[in-house]
């Protein structure tokens, strides 16, 4: 009986130790898994903070560049942009993209000083993507910042991506042109059309920049979608037909083109949209009445906005997330 009691004690002790160890191990696993989850939350929050920092840096970059009030800035900013840098969802040629990295890609033109990147970011696998629709909304830039935490940081390799859109002073809210569209007899007194009556607060420099952006991005009269804004400095006779009812154009002959006499428009060239001669010399031209459609300049701006400075688009912040 006593012998059996001893064996029972031994087995009980072994069983107790086994159960206690098992419980301890399970508890440790549980605590460690909880700690790891908590750590991952911390790393994710750190990555998100870093991506927000990079996004804010990119917003400041665009803000400081466009605060120069010189539209040559736009060309310098987007100098190395191309449609090929756009993500797969934005392959249409109207999308202009610039992938700003800390390496050789996505450099700005000489007029733009690049800002320093935030610390703790692995610059080889982080980037900022500026993208805009040069045809429908050249004044609205979507900025996407994607980062990866650098080696040596807690949570190295953690990634985060955020995006926000900003308005840039590339155009002005659309105002209906104040024009008398009735054809004048050839003998009628010539009165040059003032710029602001035709284009509202949008400046010549802004339209020139939009035209340059569309040209740089490969938009032409034959592309799909087609180019909509043409800024012409050449005094040569214009012989190309442009625009359709569904896609009207704006054709502007600059004061450079009109230095001596504004260019002629060949009789076989049909322009659907708006033609404007930026010169008093325009009156020397027998300008035919073209179909008047100003839709090519009808860019969407919120009502009442001051379009002269860089502003964030409300509600556009998005955690693109991983």
């Amino acid at each position, binding site marked *: 009986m*006593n*012998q059996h*009691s*001893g*064996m029972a*004690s*031994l087995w*009980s*002790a*072994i069983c*107790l*130790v*086994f159960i*206690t*160890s098992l*419980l*301890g*191990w399970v*508890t*440790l696993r549980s*605590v*460690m898994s*909880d*700690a790891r989850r*908590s*750590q991952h939350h*911390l790393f994710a*929050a*750190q990555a998100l*903070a*870093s991506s*927000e*920092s990079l996004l*804010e*840096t990119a917003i*400041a*970059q665009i*803000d*400081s*560049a466009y*605060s*120069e009030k010189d539209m040559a800035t736009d060309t310098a900013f987007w100098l190395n942009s191309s449609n090929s840098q756009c993500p797969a969802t934005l392959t249409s040629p109207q999308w202009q993209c610039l992938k700003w990295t800390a390496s050789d890609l996505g450099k700005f033109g000489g007029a*733009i*000083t690049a*800002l320093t990147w*935030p*610390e*703790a970011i692995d610059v080889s696998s982080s980037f900022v993507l500026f993208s805009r629709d040069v045809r429908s909304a050249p004044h609205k830039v979507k900025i996407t910042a994607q980062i990866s935490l650098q080696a040596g940081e807690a949570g190295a390799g953690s990634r985060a991506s955020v995006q926000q859109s*900003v*308005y840039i002073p590339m155009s002005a809210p659309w105002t209906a042109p104040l024009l008398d569209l009735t054809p004048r007899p050839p003998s009628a007194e010539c009165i040059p059309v003032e710029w602001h009556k035709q284009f509202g607060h949008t400046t010549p420099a802004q339209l020139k920049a939009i035209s340059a952006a569309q040209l740089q991005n490969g938009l032409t009269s034959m592309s799909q979608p087609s180019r909509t804004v043409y800024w012409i400095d050449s005094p040569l006779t214009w012989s190309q037909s442009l625009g359709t009812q569904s896609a009207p154009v704006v054709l502007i002959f600059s004061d450079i083109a009109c230095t001596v006499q504004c260019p002629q428009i060949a009789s076989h060239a049909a322009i659907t949209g708006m033609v404007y001669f930026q010169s008093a010399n325009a009156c020397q031209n027998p300008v035919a009445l073209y179909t008047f459609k100003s839709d090519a300049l009808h860019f969407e701006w*919120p*009502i*009442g*906005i*001051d379009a002269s400075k*860089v*502003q*964030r*688009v*409300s509600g556009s912040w998005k955690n693109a997330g991983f």
Partner: protein
Amino acid sequence: MTFKHSQLQVALGFTVLESVFASAILAIGLTGAIQISQASMAANQTQRSFDLASGLAQDLAECWQVSNTFCNAQFQNSQNTSALSNEAGIQFQRSWNVTAVTTQGSDPYLLQSLKISVKWSSQDMTNDTNELSWQIRRAKTPSWVGL
């Protein structure tokens, strides 16, 4: 009778030996279990401190990005230090520093950087000082909210 006595002695001896072994195994096992529990508690406490430190840093970073009376008062000086403690008696030292990042724009404060550091001492034997660093940037570019 003699045989029975010796058989009883062997049986009793064996039980004592078994009991000693059983107690030793139990003691070793319990020691291990206690050590595992202690390790779990220490890991838990460390992570809890990191969570608290991260919360303190994030709270300050959020406060920096909003404009209200309380937050504005907190950032009147570009750098500061504050001491906080939790119910476990761990003292957290939070310090921050606001600097301007140079841009080509005319506004020198267009882009600012906030560096936050939260320090605290471990409550284990080592009494090491832990530190959590947090950094965030903010551009002054306004957000258009309507008429």
